[in-house]
């Protein structure tokens, strides 16, 4: 009886999540569609000028017909949506290849960058939070607390340039052109992770601070547990929930940061392609990116939701019941 009830609850939960995911994707599609159509440029002119063709009214008309740009925005919206629902993301105007093919070419490079910067972000955050929590040295503590705002204030572009200046031009340990070496991955990943670790470590610092105020900490301390024992065994775990929420939201930051980092470090990746696609108003390509990013968001945040109960048993899956854990 209880198992059946739980099963039903899980299905309702899953259904709700899926419906939510679908509406997020539809929303992302709609907003990006409108945004692109509001841009004061037109993809055909761009394509013709880039390819050295005269702006011949005849050619323009033919191309518009071919790519369906002669139809009303309303009609384009639904035709494109219909295609997407059926797994057809269309063709990139600039390369003439299926959008998915263009994407899959560059995705691995960006995933490597994202993966490396995620690891670095976690390392940076962990070092900051641990130092802040455990040190007794006043100036060190103050310095560490000042890092997240500083990290968030440093422009990614600027940091990338400085890093190139030092590593590549002065010390010559980093090639300007990605050569597949560890350094050529670590440098841009570091730049990204500085940007990403700012919000994450800020939230973690606050959450760990909040953990110290919890009654259970007093109880454990009273039993004689050391500060570091409490920190590693309890406070971190207590704060991790909030950290993971932020981490889920950082997917967007990762991509926005990739546009800049990939340009500065001459890396080919999703960010670079996306930038070109927007500049060229390559509608199908931009839409596909937006949808994939939105899908990624949905998946990551769904995973985050599933992780909560594991970290804090007080959180239950059914959102109708109030949770007891005090999330800040």
């Amino acid at each position: 009886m209880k198992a059946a009830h739980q099963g039903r609850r899980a299905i309702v939960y899953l259904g709700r999540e899926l419906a939510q995911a679908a509406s997020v994707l539809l929303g992302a599609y709609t907003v990006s569609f409108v945004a692109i159509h509001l841009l004061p440029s037109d993809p055909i002119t761009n394509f013709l000028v880039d390819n050295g063709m005269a702006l011949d009214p005849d050619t323009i008309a033919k191309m518009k017909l071919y790519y369906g740009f002669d139809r009303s925005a309303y009609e384009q919206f639904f035709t494109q949506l219909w295609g997407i629902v059926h797994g057809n993301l269309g063709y990139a105007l600039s390369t003439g290849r299926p959008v998915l093919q263009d994407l899959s070419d560059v995705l691995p490079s960006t995933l490597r960058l994202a993966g490396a910067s995620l690891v670095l972000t976690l390392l940076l955050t962990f070092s900051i939070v641990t130092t802040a929590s455990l040190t007794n040295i006043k100036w060190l503590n103050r310095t560490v607390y000042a890092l997240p705002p500083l990290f968030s204030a440093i422009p990614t572009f600027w940091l990338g340039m400085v890093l190139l200046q030092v590593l590549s031009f002065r010390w010559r340990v980093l090639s300007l052109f990605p050569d597949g070496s560890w350094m050529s991955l670590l440098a841009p990943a570091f730049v990204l992770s500085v940007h990403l670790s700012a919000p994450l470590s800020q939230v973690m610092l606050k959450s760990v601070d909040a953990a110290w105020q919890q009654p259970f900490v007093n109880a454990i301390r009273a039993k004689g547990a050391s500060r570091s024992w409490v920190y590693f065994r309890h406070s971190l775990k207590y704060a991790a929930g909030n950290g993971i929420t932020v981490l889920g939201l950082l997917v967007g930051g990762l991509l926005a940061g990739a546009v800049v980092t990939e340009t500065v470090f001459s890396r080919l990746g999703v960010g670079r392609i996306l930038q070109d696609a927007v500049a060229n108003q390559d509608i199908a390509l931009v839409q596909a990116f937006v949808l994939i990013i939105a899908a990624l968001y949905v998946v990551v945040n769904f995973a985050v939701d599933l992780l909560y109960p594991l970290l804090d048993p007080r959180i239950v899956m059914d959102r109708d019941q109030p949770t007891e854990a005090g999330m800040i």
Partner: protein
Amino acid sequence: MTTKFGRRSALAGMATTALMTATGSSRAAGETPVYGGTLIFADVQLIYTWQLQAGGRYNIGNGLNQIVDCLVYQEPGTGKIVPWLASSYAINDDATVFTFKLRDGVTFSDGTKLDVNWVKANLDQAGLGDEQKGIPQNYDFQGYDRTEILDDHTIRIVLKHPNRYFIVALSYATSGFVAQSTLDKSFKDQARPQSIVGTGPFVFQSEVPKQEVVLVRREDYRWPPQGAQNPGKAYLDKIVFREIIEEGIRTGALQSGQADVVKGIQPSDETLLEGQGFRIYGQRPLLNVTDQISIRVDNKLVSDRNVRYALSIGINRRELVDTVLSKSYAPTTALLLKDSPGYVAFDKELAYDPDKANALLDAAGWVRNAQGIRVKDGKQLCLSVAASSQSSAVKPAMEFIGQQWRKLGVVLINRAGDDTFMNQSSESPEVPLRIFRPGLTSGLVGVFGYPNGNTSNNTTTLHSDPALEALFKEDLATLDPAKQLQLLTDIQKKLIVDYVYTIPVYEASQTYGTSKRVHIAFNSNTLPIFQNTWISPA
């Protein structure tokens, strides 16, 4: 994405001197060239298409020029047209028929022979386009009618109307010859570097999409242009083409030895690099227009000649070049580059005169508001300018001009370097100012007129002027130098002074920086000749 001075613009060029020139520089101090080495060339943008007709931008020409050869070659310095794949050529009296005798023994890198049939097939595809394959007409081939094969060694190109500039167009890399395997491909497929099979000194070896292209020397190459310094195969083993989008990083790449040659040095970095022992080459195409701000005269803000003239005399050209540019640039009041035939300057008429400029704007009814900005009929005199990213000088130059115009009560919105904006401005009169340097392969009709009555081609002024166009066409058929000069003087006075359709500002350069060990050569069109480039041992 980055300039295009518009495609035609990009590869323009005929007549004389490149500024610091070119071929001469590689033989300084009697050094003997050595074979071997890989040259890393970092450009402002990677070559995104290798399709010949689409290759009007400088960065694309930089690649094409190593892979294909042309019928004729224009000597840097003299501007003389000399034989290349043709062993001799002749032009008829009204510049409508061009006859070529082919050189013997030329082969494509796939082993096939270049014969009259292939020359014709190439010229037809360039001149007529191929709708089925999606290939447009080569912009420089306006008025192309047909190619006739006279015998096994001779062909004749016939134009529908006179064009004395056409012979120069045939020397451009975009008029190079490709093998059957390339010609048979569609527009999209020809765009890939592995598709381009030419007769040139280098052949495609490998590509990392959007990151690098590697060309390797062709060992049996022995047909450079007549009088070439290197009569045989290239000195370099390989060339690696890469891109560095950021200007500052390009300078750093050269300084740190990560690139042997970089294109697009910021004017402010030139002295620094030279002081550190690097070489700077400022290259100007031989037949081209100066960097001039062309005006969309039908735009209401600038439809009054007085306003346009005020803008022109409101620029202190000397101060501009001394302040934000470098010795690779020169102030000018002419439409054509100093070494182009038909050059005439209007120094007196365009002398800097802010008082007169202010008076003209007052007279035109533009009154200053509280912020000092001129207003008429509720509209501010607020002008946007479009320019591509291929020249490093345009942006700082326009920044400077904006400051000078602000003193006149005119606001300049500087969109130089924004290629998307540039593309969009091609046919939008909403953008009143545009810096654009179309090539002169159709004469001035290709710059300020409507070749073939095609209304979509004049992207400079977006304005039709039948009287001027008649003069442009007369120039195309005029082969007598004295008469040419008279005509061109008349035309330029109208464009620059009488009507003020355009504001010449400075003579631009395509700037290259190289390490001391690199001995580089350039053609008349600013493109490096890597066949005649070598690296001296460390």
